[in-house]
């Protein structure tokens, strides 16, 4: 297992380099322009000058190599300097600059991280915590009232897109309920809010309720379906009958034998979803104005901000590759018969 993990980690480097090149090509080839969103009163010559100053017109290879150097050599050193107070000679070097804000890409990403992790991360956690028990119990009591209701609610929840459910909860909790009521919830997320005491925590909690609710609905629906299906598969297996015949208590049969063997698809879905937390939730963030990483990405795409799109999607790619590796390692732990070597 260890050698497998190490080998996979080493393989990760060329994979990621290749992915970064493909992403770069796609982002550069797509027809967008950093000056597209400027008012039409700005004349074409000036637009050309702006593009020139951003380096949009340089050869592709030059831009790609510059990006590689900035991302892999300069930015990590700046992070280290920030953490340990060292001096690694980064003074005066041009950092990875976003076209739209003319400020370092990495600073913006660090700035957006907290609200995305708070909202999307919490939703993910809540979603998993609700989904797995529902999945287990639905499968155990297949076709019971609980199972039928669970299926119905989760499928409806999954088929309602967040641009609808988000607006629906805002209309209910922010518009129809009067502002001074206890049940009223803010429709706009305050990203400058800091949690310092109980009162400010309560505020943070209140403003997170709606976005977390909307996101968790989707996540719960998805994971509980996979958990239920996988449990059902295993509940009919011979080893379950054997365990019961042996006199293992019902609880032990389900929680120990069946659950562990049913986790492989669930682990895959959960692991694949974790990079998604960092990717943010584009629509939900927009509906509630959370302005996290998802909003950063969509604005960058709309604004033709190549360095920002490239960096964000690449960080996303790193996380995907890493969490897929984690999932593979977990398979081995969950099912010792799986051997990679």
């Amino acid at each position: 297992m260890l050698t497998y993990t190490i080998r996979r980690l080493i393989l990760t480097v060329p994979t990621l380099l290749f992915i970064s090149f493909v992403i770069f090509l796609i982002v550069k080839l797509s027809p967008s322009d950093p000056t597209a969103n400027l008012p039409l009163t700005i004349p074409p010559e000036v637009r050309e000058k702006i593009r020139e100053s951003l380096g949009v017109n340089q050869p592709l290879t030059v831009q790609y190599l510059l990006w590689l150097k900035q991302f892999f050599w300069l930015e990590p050193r700046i992070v280290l300097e920030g953490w340990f107070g060292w001096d690694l000679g980064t003074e005066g070097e041009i950092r990875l600059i976003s076209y739209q804000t003319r400020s370092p890409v990495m600073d913006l990403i660090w700035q957006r991280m907290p609200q995305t992790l708070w909202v999307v991360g919490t939703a993910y956690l809540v979603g998993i915590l609700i989904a797995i028990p529902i999945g287990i119990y639905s499968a155990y009591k297949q076709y019971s009232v609980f199972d039928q209701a669970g299926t119905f609610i989760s499928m409806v929840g999954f088929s309602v897109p967040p641009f609808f459910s988000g607006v629906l909860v805002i209309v209910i909790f922010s518009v129809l309920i009067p502002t001074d009521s206890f049940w009223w919830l803010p429709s706009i997320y305050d990203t400058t809010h800091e949690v310092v005491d109980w009162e400010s925590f309560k505020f943070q909690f209140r403003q997170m309720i709606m976005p977390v609710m909307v996101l968790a609905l989707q996540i719960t629906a998805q994971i509980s379906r996979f958990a239920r299906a996988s449990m059902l598969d295993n509940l009919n297996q011979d080893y379950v009958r054997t365990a019961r015949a042996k006199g293992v208590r019902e609880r032990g049969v389900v929680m120990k034998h069946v659950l562990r063997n049913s986790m492989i698809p669930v682990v895959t879905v959960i692991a694949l979803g974790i990079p998604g937390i960092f990717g943010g939730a584009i629509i939900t963030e927009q509906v509630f104005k959370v302005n996290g990483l998802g909003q950063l990405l969509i604005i960058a795409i709309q604004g033709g901000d190549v360095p920002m799109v490239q960096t964000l999607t690449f960080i996303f790619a790193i996380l995907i590759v890493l969490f897929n590796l984690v999932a593979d390692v977990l398979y081995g732990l969950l099912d010792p018969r799986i051997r990679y070597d």
Partner: protein
Amino acid sequence: MTLKSMLMSAVATVALTPMAFADAHEGERGRDGQLNIIYWQAPSTLNPYLSGGTKEVESASLVLESLGRFSDTGELMPWLAADIPTVENGGLAADLTSITWTLKEGVMWSDGTPLTAADAVFTWKYCTDPDGGCAQSSYFDGVENIEALDDLTIKISFNAPKPFPYTALVGSESPILQAAQFADCMGANAPTCTDANFGPIGTGPFVVTEFKANDVIQFAANENFREEGKPAFATVNFKGGGDAASAARSVLETGEYDYAWNLQIDPTVLADMESKGLGTVVTAFGTSVERLHINQSNPDPALGDERATLKHPHPFLTDPEIGKAMSMAIDRALLVEVGYGAGGQVTCNVLPAPAVYASTANDGCKVQDIAGANAVLDAAGYMDTNGDGIREKDGMPLSVTYQTSTNAVRQDTQALVKQWWSEIGIDTELRNIDASVFFGGDPASPDTFQKFFADVEMYTNNFAGVDPEAYMANWRCSEIPSPDTQWQGSNMQRFCDPAYDALVDKLAQTAGIDARAEIVKEMNDMLMASYSIIPLIHRGGVSAHANTLGGVLISDWDSELWNIKDWYSTK
């Protein structure tokens, strides 16, 4: 001619000076607590020279100021300048080649240092540095030199007589930067000055306390602001993100915010929200016109590289009779009612404002006339010969592709226009393109509005300030986009008429408001008669403010927030 009279004649409504409002609500600075503003497109920087977007310019206008600003009525008001230079008061040279501004005395930057003429000179150098990529450099077009005659006097010299000299350092798009703060940020160094770009030191009523790009800005009242007791608000929370409907909801329905910008949503929905009684919808009209451009060149893909160039005139749209029929078939009043509400007015001119320039020769288009349009086409000999409901010209069906950017209101307009054109035997295929592609200048993309690989396209254009000279020059022959110019140029519909070009040159040499207005009207009518542009709607900015917020006078000639120093709370 006096400048005042020229600008005042441009004013259509009664001017209410902001002072009249503020007098009734005096008090100490910062007495009204926090002001919450939501812009659903978030500002990405506070340096308007690095990003020309409206959201950046308007948010920066809380901090950075210029010599003069345009009021809600389009009147030029002295702001950092003591007064507006004119030929009469000697500020403007008689030959129109230089202008001399005098700063107000005792204006301080928010860090406590005095504002001097050297800052203005620096700003000019900053924006015209060839490596800087300054988005507002067109404001300094024709400026030969800017010099500081003394600490308070700025002299701007032009390389040719400038009939309208109030561009450089006037209006929220070209404010004065502090030389001390931006000294190391010239040219290629501009992007390295993140702190300065995100927190410029200004002379305005507010100072930046926190800036999160594309998210939120926090401002606090400027303790060194030159006017006693202003601003009324101690802090401003300037939030970005979301969409227009939710921004409107947060002001009009939940009352979480006090001011929301650019609310182009369905008029019935907006009216419904307003009826809740928490806030008021306000509009300001400038020069924006939603229009159709009728391609005079042939966009047929079979033409390859010569597609949509003047080498191949359009097979039928070059005939003004067809354009005339297309224009007559459109019910503009209904388009306003369905898509724009208070934010739109019917117009038959590509230049509807200022009032002095607005022609009345084309007003016939205000009423829909389907029967008339059919008669025009019948008379011109375009008949439906094969009975499929579509007219033909020499066997070629009159079918057009009609493209615009993606936007709910534009798609409704497209659907309506398609229906009306089908009633006069013109077949329409609709297409919508993501705005960042459509308005982007990527020469590799076939979908940009400059390439115009379609028969009809629709968007809004306008001009900044109150002088239309540069705007009307958009339709010169030399402005036609083509492969030779990398598809750059602003004459989208490929209109080319030597007589029109002659008028452009004449306008550039003519001074005097009435003489200029005559020429401009003639040019407008020439464009209208060619039916290469079909104006649809004179669009205004639509915003909403809470009923507890006073002093709001939104302007479409300058930043909407131009007089935020006079805003107050009535709570």
